[in-house]
């Protein structure tokens, strides 16, 4: 009776049990591909806040929230941002559409996420409290007294680099991780797929012929 292993997590499990060396080899190859993107993204993070926004830099002082939200606006700390740019080798849980990501790249720092995404919806910056028109809803507007605050901030973020789109959807636009992945031009994905394919073929060979390839 033929035994069929379906799916990459299952393949990984099978490799772990029956060919741990192949599993290690596959993981190493994938790790190299992901690290390339991660390092490129980390290199895009400037040492100081872009656009000379020196008040955004993390000086270590305690920060209080100035809005109704409990969490304060995060400070820019390049070390923390770089540390937050990482990858994950494990598959995620299946989402509602039935898809599970096999490998993921992360930009998990809050300030890093702001620098990544700022200006995606409002390229000229959000409307601020000070610049609000009469009758305009106060929902989703900035709380700055400077009406140009949003424009200045987005302009400063563009100093990191332009928003680059890594897939065909508008949501896939960013300056740091997304831009690094876009610059990678699918090489990482290709390497991952090749590593999986190689490992599956080798496992198949070993199971069928009982020898190391």
């Amino acid at each position, binding site marked *: *009776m033929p*035994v*069929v*292993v*379906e*799916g*990459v*997590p*299952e393949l990984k*499990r*099978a490799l772990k*049990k*029956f060919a741990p060396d192949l599993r290690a080899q596959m993981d190493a190859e994938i790790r190299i591909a*992901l690290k390339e993107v991660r390092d490129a993204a980390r290199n895009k993070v400037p040492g100081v806040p872009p656009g000379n926004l020196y008040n955004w830099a993390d000086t270590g002082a305690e920060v209080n929230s100035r809005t109704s939200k409990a969490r304060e606006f995060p400070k820019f700390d390049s070390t923390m941002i770089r540390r*937050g740019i990482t990858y994950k080798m494990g*598959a*995620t849980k*299946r989402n509602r559409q*039935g*898809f*599970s*990501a*096999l*490998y*993921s*790249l*992360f*930009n*998990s720092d809050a300030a*890093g*996420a702001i620098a*990544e*995404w700022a200006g995606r919806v409002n390229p000229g910056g959000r409307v601020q409290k000070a610049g609000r028109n009469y009758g305009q809803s106060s929902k989703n507007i900035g709380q700055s007294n400077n009406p140009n605050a949003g424009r200045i901030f987005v302009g400063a973020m563009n100093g990191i680099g332009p928003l680059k789109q*890594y897939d065909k959807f508008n949501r896939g636009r*960013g300056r740091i*991780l*997304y831009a690094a*992945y876009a610059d990678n031009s699918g090489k*990482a*994905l290709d390497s*991952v*797929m090749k590593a*999986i394919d190689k490992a599956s073929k080798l496992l198949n060979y070993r*199971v069928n012929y*009982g020898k190391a390839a």
Partner: protein
Amino acid sequence: MAIRIDIASEFKDKGFKQADKATTSLQRNLKSLGKTLVGVLSVREVVQFGKASVRAFEEDERAATRLTQTLGNLGLAFEDSRVTAYIADLERASGVLDDKLRPAFQSLLTTTGSVTKAQDLLGLALDVAAGSGQDVTTVAGDLSKAYVGNTRSLAKYNTGLSRAELQTANFAEVQALLAKQFSGQNAAYLDTYSGKVAVLNIAYANMQETVGQGLVDAFTILQGDKGIGGGVKVMDGFGDSIANTTRGIANLIAAFSDLRTYGTTVFEFFRNVDPFAPWSAITQMGKVKPKPFQTPMSVSGSTDAQVKIDRARAKAESDAAKRAKELLALTKKQVKSQEALNKKKKEEGILGQIAQRFDLERVQIAAALRGQIDDVERLRLELMQAILDEDVKRAIILEGQLIKAEAAAKELADLLDSLDEMVGDPFVDWPSKITRIQELLKQLNIKIPIETLFAEKGLRLDQSTMSVTKLERMDVDANNVYINGQLMNQNQTMVNTGQALSAEVWKEFTADNPLVVAAVENAAEANLALADAELLLAESLLAESDGTIEINVNVDGSIISEGDLAETIINEIYRNQRNGTGIFLSSVAI
């Protein structure tokens, strides 16, 4: 919320549990498969190892025998023990199996005829093989070919020499280059993990061969002094052998009934009987009897054997060196003759290529242009002369000039041919066309005036306004005929009916040249009478006709350029708009 990029997502349907079940099932199956395999492999592997060992021994022995035979054929049989020891040492030192070293050495030895030279080259072959990734046998084969002048196969080692350089290089140069490029590669390889594994593999292979030899010997003893066809077959037919042995014992017993052998057998049995191990007598009887030594032996000359070997070796080496010198001289000679041949071929190729230009089509073109394209004709004739003279250098120069001249002539011919079409086109840029024709005439050294060329096409060229019109009548008279580029009857005026004065005549006329003025006046009077006659003829023709009059309208000169036309249309539209005149169909009353 962290920003995330998902790589290589996988669609997982509701069958996750099924997949899990399948994995568990796979685990169980593989486990049971593993257990089964362990049980089976323990016996199977031993049998396979035995088979492989016997096969390895056979191949090794066959290769060794082949090499020994080659040595014998080359008159180097006395080197056999030295070569065997060398191969064994080299195998351990290089990490390359003797199965590969022997054929490699054999090919080098056959080519060079010298054991020393073959050893040198085999060392080089090992380095090249380690450096290039090729098999040592292949490299040795390539070196052997190169030794006799065939260096083509060395191209794959990326020596940095072109194919032509490889062909002309002698073997010493090639050897030096390869040694420089690949020196120490094998030693470096042995330092690597892979190299160490290769050395281990050799130990394993040697062990396998030794085991194989033991197995073959064992079965040889079992089969008696007739030997065995193949150890593997015997191993496969081991059961049959046991059955046959049983039958053999029965036959042996039966043999006792034969009185002729009875006495001998009994005597031998009791001679071997050991009182403490009576069965050993049967074992002793089964031992292979040594064959009598048939080669005649002589003690004479044994004292100077080494001297003889040394002499033979020196002779073989000197023969090989002589052969190498001959090969080198031959290679040089070949290179020289090849170079001469290449040069000749190249020259023939050039001449052939140029000679192709004189095909029928080109001759026809030349004939069509004859009388006008003097320069082309001159070049063509000169080139033909150069080909007949086999003057390659001059032929090449003339060919280049001819190509240029032909291109110019073709362009001029095309321009003149297209004049008829152009004259009806109001957008033609006549000044540039006329200038180009003049340039081409000058370039080709054609002395025919441009007006004449236009007149032959039924056109009148006015150089002062750079315009071209159709001639109302084509008058070919003495004034319009030129021979060898010279205008005939230069003293006469060029006044034709309905034609304006030519620029030259007009110049003389305005300069009050009395001769020209008189001529023009005379011509005018003559033309007047002719014109009157024509008028009468025209009127009579009109009267005879049915009243239908065909009117041909000629557009004189370039009326406007494309850009000017567009601008004019736009201005007209603006003007209409200013006047309130509609420009669209809907606004015009129909």
